[in-house]
């Protein structure tokens, strides 16, 4: 009984002790490719870049973000009552695996309402759709 308590305590502790994330590659890619604009904690920056934390659009359709990443996004976009209007450039050279990992990290870390893991087949299905028509989101 006592041993078991210690065991659980240790497990819980180790979760807090290390910088725990289930999606280390997604985290690294997010920090390298997205955090410059959206912020390390996805808090956004002034009215230039929207936060990605508890994003309504992301919750409604997380797979859409795969298309945003490969096609970029431009034009007025309202998030939490603020109209953003800068350009997010398309990010080139990411594989479907990498994109899926980014989506999962963004979901897991900043959008707890979105059930993870997001599925790579659905990511590919969506990428196929928006590949030829960047307007389809």
């Amino acid at each position, binding site marked *: 009984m006592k041993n078991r308590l210690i065991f659980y305590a240790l497990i819980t502790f180790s979760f807090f002790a290390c910088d725990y994330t289930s999606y280390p590659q997604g985290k690294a890619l997010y920090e390298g490719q997205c955090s410059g604009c959206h912020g390390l904690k996805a808090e956004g920056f002034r*009215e230039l870049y929207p936060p990605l934390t508890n994003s309504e659009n992301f919750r409604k359709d997380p797979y859409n973000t795969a298309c945003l990443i490969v096609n970029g996004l431009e034009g007025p976009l309202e998030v939490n009552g603020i109209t953003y209007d800068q*350009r997010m450039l398309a990010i080139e050279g990411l594989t479907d695996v990498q994109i899926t990992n980014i989506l999962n990290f963004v979901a897991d870390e900043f959008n707890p309402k979105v059930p993870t893991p997001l599925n790579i087949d659905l990511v590919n299905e969506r990428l196929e759709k928006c590949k030829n028509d960047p307007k389809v989101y």
Partner: protein
Amino acid sequence: MKDNWLFIIIIFFGIGCTAPDQQDPNDQTTIMVDGKKQLPILGERKIVDGKTVFHQIPDFSFINQDSMVVNNATFKDKIYVVDFFFTSCPTICPKVKKQVLRLYDEFEKEPRLQFLSHSIDVKYDTQEKLNSYGKQLGISSDRWHLVTGVEDEIFEMADDYFIAAHHDSDAPGGFDHSGRLILVDQNRHVRGFAEGTEPESVTKFMGTIRMLLDEK
């Protein structure tokens, strides 16, 4: 004959003694002048008519986010901080802008300090685009100018500020440029710099700016 040699040696020494040191644009170590610490004047030096002529920012004329002309006269009796960016830049610019914003807030009550950000993406960053960028960043053109102009002239100015900036299709967003911030005094001399991507470097830079403000 012997005298001739002596003469040449004397001339040689003479030049050696009066030619001023060049100041490496990457070295901003303070110097002592009359027992007081001072910021160096960065860049090349020449002797003209027996006087030292320092590297000076040439004439320029650009348009800012409120469609006003920004030129050397804009910064008369002022000092200013310079950077180069573009609005859709994904990697270094947002970091640099956050740091310039720190300076903008820190020196809020110092009307003698101005900011000048050049867009190097003249095609996309129109005056309207810069206007919305300035608004969304929450800054005023009273103190912080976001300018556009003739592309070649902007790239040439980058050289004069010792900042690397050029087209590069391999770089994110199509431009390769450094995130350096440059400090210019009221005589158009470059007096210091910071790495705009590094918060600690910018904290030090605040001291550099104060030193220049205190100069007279």
